[in-house]
């Protein structure tokens, strides 16, 4: 079954027939995790780097921010017996518009926030397709762990 992850949203699964997909990541970031042993994983699509922006919003929807969303993504996957040590982690998105001033560097701020979280928690990123000015659609195939990325002007490729 196709499970769609919207903006500020997260889904996990251990059903081998499931494909978790997020359409059109712009400056947002998609974090994809998958444990090859239990064949379970998930996808988080967060909008902004830091929940300090609005704690109320973060409480209502933790998946809006990287710092509140990432821990929950892992925790939900652990429920399927996934283990952090085995987890394959990949990152997609973080594009931004062409602006030299840095006012619209949402993509960069999003990527930086994630790097800090992973650094603190000893998470190694196995692959990423981040930055540039392209929007991306990413899917995680639960049965195989395949992560496919679609960008305009390019064939779909496995990350």
């Amino acid at each position: 079954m196709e499970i769609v992850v919207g903006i500020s949203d997260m889904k996990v699964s251990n059903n081998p027939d499931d494909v978790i997909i997020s359409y059109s990541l712009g400056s947002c970031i998609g974090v994809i995790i998958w444990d090859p042993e239990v064949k379970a994983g998930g996808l988080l699509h967060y909008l902004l780097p830091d929940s300090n922006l609005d704690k109320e919003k973060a409480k209502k929807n933790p998946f809006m921010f990287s710092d509140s969303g990432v821990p929950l993504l892992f925790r939900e996957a652990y429920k399927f017996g996934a283990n952090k040590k085995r987890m394959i982690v990949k990152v997609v998105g973080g594009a931004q518009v062409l602006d030299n001033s840095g006012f619209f560097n949402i993509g960069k701020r999003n990527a930086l926030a994630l790097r800090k979280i992973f650094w603190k928690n000893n998470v190694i990123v196995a692959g990423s397709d981040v930055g540039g000015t392209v929007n991306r659609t990413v899917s995680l195939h639960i049965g195989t762990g395949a992560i496919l990325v679609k960008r305009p002007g390019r064939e779909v490729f496995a990350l």
Partner: protein
Amino acid sequence: MSRLKEILDSVQQVAPFPKVAMRVIEMLKHDVTAKDLADVIQYDQAITATVLKVCNSSYFALSRKISSLDEALVVIGQNLLKEVIITSSSSTFFRDIAGGGYKFEQGEIWKHSVAVAIMSRQLMHHVKVVDEASAFTVGLLHDIGKQFLSSFVKEDFNKIMRKVLNERCSFVEAEKYFLGTTHAELGGIILMNWEFPEEMVTAVRDHHEPDALDRGVMTALVALSNVLVASMGIGVGAGGLATRIHGEGLRRFDITQNDMDLHMADLLAEMAKAEEILAL
């Protein structure tokens, strides 16, 4: 016939914008009563039907069915009324161009347009645009030129995309380079043909100019809204985030990065509300 002439001719074929909607946008610049508005709206069956449908939608959860326009205007109030009228009048011009040159998914360009209109409404106070109905309309119509350029972009898609990806060029710059015009310019022509006020024509025409934030407030507002909505990845199609903007222009407005982040966060809830009310 040259291709540019063919493109320019195609926009001359566009049907007129509903007169009643134009009149309402104009009226709302001044103080009007629900009765004044009802007097005008009643002559447009499509708009009347939409207004009644919205009133009777689950969003308002009224205990009885509303069947007269006078009653309806009291229920939905002026703010929502203008958005309902402008939105329903504009939507007819966004026939689906899914899979065309911009590689839109079904309904994506319309979703983007609504998002930019709502973002414009949210940002109005920062940018000091006073005429909300016009700003909302510009947001909804800013990409209307894509309807006409789509098939031409499709012919040259590979060349356009290569230029965008290899030369750090914006999608609009590539349109101009290969087609001789842009969707923004075409949009300006369409609004001019519809006899919209100069400020709205200019805003649509210039919304991709890199210095848009330094220009008139309506132009700055739609350019800023478009950049934020594009950053969120909402309905951008193949153009993606390949749009150029000089962010320094923001300094003249009372807006911080925090404000912009908050408005992006707010947009999601506002979009959900709009979907419920307008059944987008």
